């Protein structure tokens, strides 16, 4: 906006303002009604949904699936979608920081005199795109599976075998997911790539007995799983020995 545009705006605005009504009581009445609506919403939410309190914090659990408050879901989902480790800082800090910087810069970037939405196509398109992206990410984040889950499809050979084999495979998948293996091992699309080796094709490198031996007597820092109940232990071994 150059000087004459600024002056024109101020002139326009002073006319519109002179035409207006006093803040008290006209705007105050609307604001008060809105405040009542807000209060009614908060009270209704509190009465209907209440305030649950989960079990006490236990720093030693490894299976708990943390969930942020719903309005952070979009960040949470962003972190889930962006997998390559080199891009993770971008997802976690980069995107929010860039978002904040862009918000701060907005009035310095968009200095045109035009205020009507239909004549600001770039701003409108950007705004609507950001809203849609955040809504989509929030929705996806809300429906995201637990991060301690293995999303690998069951191989067709095992599905066809059915019965005992299939049941053991599925049970083993669940135990592996819940035992914190994914903290150090990658299995399919899930888990961290390191410090432990990638387990996606472990069965092609280690025979069944080798897998069982490693689980009982692993290389540090991996903990031993010899104290797992035998049924769970066998399920884990069957699952891992199918990963070819």
């Amino acid at each position: 906006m150059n000087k004459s545009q600024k002056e024109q705006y101020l002139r326009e605005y002073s006319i519109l303002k002179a035409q207006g009504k006093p803040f008290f009581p006209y705007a105050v009445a609307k604001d008060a009604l809105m405040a009542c609506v807000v209060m009614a919403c908060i009270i209704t939410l509190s009465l209907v949904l209440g305030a649950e309190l989960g079990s006490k914090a236990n720093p030693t659990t490894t299976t708990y699936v943390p969930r942020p408050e719903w309005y952070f879901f979009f960040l949470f989902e962003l972190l889930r979608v962006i997998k390559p480790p080199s891009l993770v800082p971008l997802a976690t800090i980069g995107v929010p920081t860039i978002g904040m910087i862009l918000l701060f810069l907005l009035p310095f970037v968009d200095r045109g005199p035009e205020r009507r939405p239909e004549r600001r196509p770039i701003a409108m398109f950007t705004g609507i795109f950001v809203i849609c992206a955040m809504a989509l990410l929030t929705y996806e984040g809300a429906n995201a599976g637990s991060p301690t889950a293995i999303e690998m499809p069951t191989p067709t050979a095992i599905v066809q075998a059915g019965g005992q084999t299939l049941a053991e495979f599925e049970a083993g998948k669940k135990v592996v997911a819940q035992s914190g293996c994914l903290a150090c091992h990658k299995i399919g699309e899930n888990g961290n790539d390191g410090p432990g080796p990638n387990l996606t094709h472990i069965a092609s490198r280690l025979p069944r007995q080798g897998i069982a031996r490693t689980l009982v007597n692993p290389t540090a820092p991996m903990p031993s799983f010899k104290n797992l109940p035998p049924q769970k232990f066998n399920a884990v071994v069957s699952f891992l020995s199918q990963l070819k």
Partner: protein
Amino acid sequence: MPKLPAPPVPAALKAPPPRPGDGNGKATPLDHAAEAGISVVDWVDERTSLSGAARWMMFRKVPKGTNWFYTLGSATMFAFLSQAVTGVFLAMFYKPDPSGGAYESIRHVTNEVFLGQFVRGMHKWGSSVMVILVFLHMGRTFFFGAYKYPRELNWLIGVVLLILTMVMSFTGYLLPFDQRAYWATIVGVNINGTGPLLGPYLSDFLRGGPEFGAVTLSRFYAIHMMLVPGLIAALIGAHLYLVAKLGTTAPPWLKAEKNPELRKAKA
């Protein structure tokens, strides 16, 4: 003898008002009582001269055409006030003690204190309502182009308020110290730690050291209870001052100069 006020009867039946000179011009104690409110305001105003500021704030004109979208800002402020009031009541019971006291005090509020669960529910859901209102208010400002000259500074203050609201939400999430709170906060702090340059320092500051420990909870508690609410209140003050000073925006589709009716009315 003090007299009772006259009953609300039709004008024709009322006794005529006292003429000047009746009663020797002396105010009765009842007159003094009736004027008590005005006298108090006068007394304060004589010493502070606040009435000018109040008149400037309350009787400024709001442009033609403002609609319900313009109530979102004050609604956000109202949600903040509700958070402040319910937060004070929660603080009366809360103990920032990670070795069990924090969880126990919240359990006590939720299960045993009269209306405790209701007030905690209001505080918990009030935060969601406030975040929604902040975003709606920001959306209104964005789509109506209200961040443009001369209101750029107010937009900047608004962005800081948005960030502070998110900080409130993040720090408040830990305080109940249940599983959900604990693990979500660990993940959140670790996410901060992956940030470039300042990331590790920020997460060390939040944790109060390299490990999540006893200091962490009291740190979050102090940030949530004192630092950020104070900043928010001060910045809301600045935000409102600028709104009153610069005036509420008119809807962007209203153009006074091209509207002959409005031009005439000005002249």
